[in-house]
């Protein structure tokens, strides 16, 4: 058993929430992601069983969406937008700055499991570039100073 009783319960409640059962798949993916911070195959299988759909349907849909990591990531998942509007405001150098501060490359996780660094496509924050999303939250109009402070706060929160 991977899923908590609470998540399982929430999934059961979604069974008949929508005009068709399959419509609950994406909401279920969010529930699993909220509990684990990623979507593992075992969790997804269990979630499919709880929802009462085939495991194949669950996995097929889950594999389409890039919002959810498919394996365990750091406690703080740092996602930097490096698309056009952010790039014009220094996103590529924000990425390099984070790489050097964290001592990892894009795609990597720090050895203490605290930070994972990704680049992602546009997050709809172009007027407040450069920016990054960390877990569920946006951090905008970033400067070196702001990044330093944030990283320090997160390191101290261990």
């Amino acid at each position, binding site marked *: 058993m991977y899923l908590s009783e609470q998540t399982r319960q929430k999934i059961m409640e979604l069974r008949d929430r929508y005009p068709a059962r399959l419509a*609950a798949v994406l909401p279920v993916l969010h529930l699993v992601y909220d509990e684990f911070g990623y979507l593992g195959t075992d969790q997804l299988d269990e979630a499919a069983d709880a929802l009462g759909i085939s495991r194949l349907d669950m996995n097929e*849909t889950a594999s389409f*969406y890039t*919002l959810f990591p498919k394996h365990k990531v750091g406690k703080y998942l740092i996602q930097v937008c490096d698309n056009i509007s952010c790039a014009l405001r*220094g996103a590529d150098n924000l990425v390099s700055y984070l790489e050097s501060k964290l001592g990892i490359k894009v795609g990597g996780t720090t050895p203490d499991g605290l930070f994972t660094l990704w680049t992602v496509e*546009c997050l709809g*924050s172009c007027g407040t570039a450069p920016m990054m*999303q960390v877990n569920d939250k946006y951090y905008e109009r970033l400067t070196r100073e702001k990044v330093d402070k944030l990283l320090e706060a997160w390191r101290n929160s261990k």
Partner: protein
Amino acid sequence: MTNKILFKYIDHPDQDKIATYIENGGYLALRKALKEFKPEELVELIKKSGLRGRGGAGFPTGLKWSFLPKNMNKPIYLIINADESEPGTFKDRQLMEYNPHQLLEGTIIAAYAIKCHLVFIYIRGEFAYCAQQISRAIQEASSHGFVGKNILGSGFDLDIHIYRGGGAYICGEETSLMESIEGRRALSRQKPPFPAIEGLWACPTIINNVETISNIPHIINNGAEWFASIGMAKSVGTKIYCLSGHVKRPGNYELPMGVSLRELIYEYGGGIIDDYALKAVIPGGSSVPILRADEIDVKMDFESLAEKGSMLGSAGVIVMHDGTCMVAALQKLVKFYEHESCGKCSPCREGTNWMNKILKRMLAGEGRPEDVDLLYDVASNIIGNTVCPLGDAAAMPVMSFIRKFRDEFDNICGGGKPYGTISFPFR
């Protein structure tokens, strides 16, 4: 300054709370709509107002609603498209964060007008805060009797689901969006049948953008003539222009349709940063053809931009100064479409991949002189050859960048040094 409609209370701290929203005239339009209008009359009113979709295509909203079949015994669905993912676009997010009730009131009125009893608000997955705001707004509205059974004693019932996306740009495209809600991989559907005839679960479905729907309460309150009198002849009302890139004051600006692009950049945006000169502007989100600095004396509305060979699109205005390398800028756009292609149609799936490869080769100094034509050729084989317009959206920037800035591409492929960079300072 002109009169703002959607952003009128943007500086009001508690506009997202129902008490403040009501204090500022909120939910009067809903009362009026339910009391004084039959659904069909509302459709006519919206038609008369000239309101056109703000999601990118500019389709007349009332006309779309009127396509719904009459007297059908299937449910009718309304989907609010809050998937906002087009690079350079960030207006729907602000509309939802600062004024969720404005959207909600518009949604309830729209549902009543099209005789829909179940709405899905499809919010892009990353917008967690928007989802919170809308969710809270729905709760508040329910406790005031604006959502649920027998709304304000009218006999009209309505349920609203918030549906959160999974980080896929393609889900903003209306047919993919419906696949997504149905729980499958979000591959686009062939049209026709159009959603108004056969949409979600093969039932009649209307899909409208957040900004489109946020306008509805104001049209009810002030009348169709009032709305139609703002802006241009065919592009009416205000528009939220999303200004980003190399301007001094980036951000959202609500202005009448047809404001000049030059004014937007130099008056509202405060001009170009660091005393550079303007090089180029993408006027309507990453998907639309780019304009050169000498082409910015254009009005920002559907017709005027089309005349200039570009589009208003989502009104994401991306400004680039003359230190920008256009080859590198284009690669940023193309890698986006490569990543976001849903994979259904070969021209888009394979073509975006090839285009990105060619551009990366150019940027690595390994471009061959014939690569410029090759890149253009790949793009012209995508455009028009895919089920949904994501293919066109990927091809249009490529073709326009090459047409307008050919010398930069030729120069790089001839072994020359790039004319600029995309790696701007982070301080």
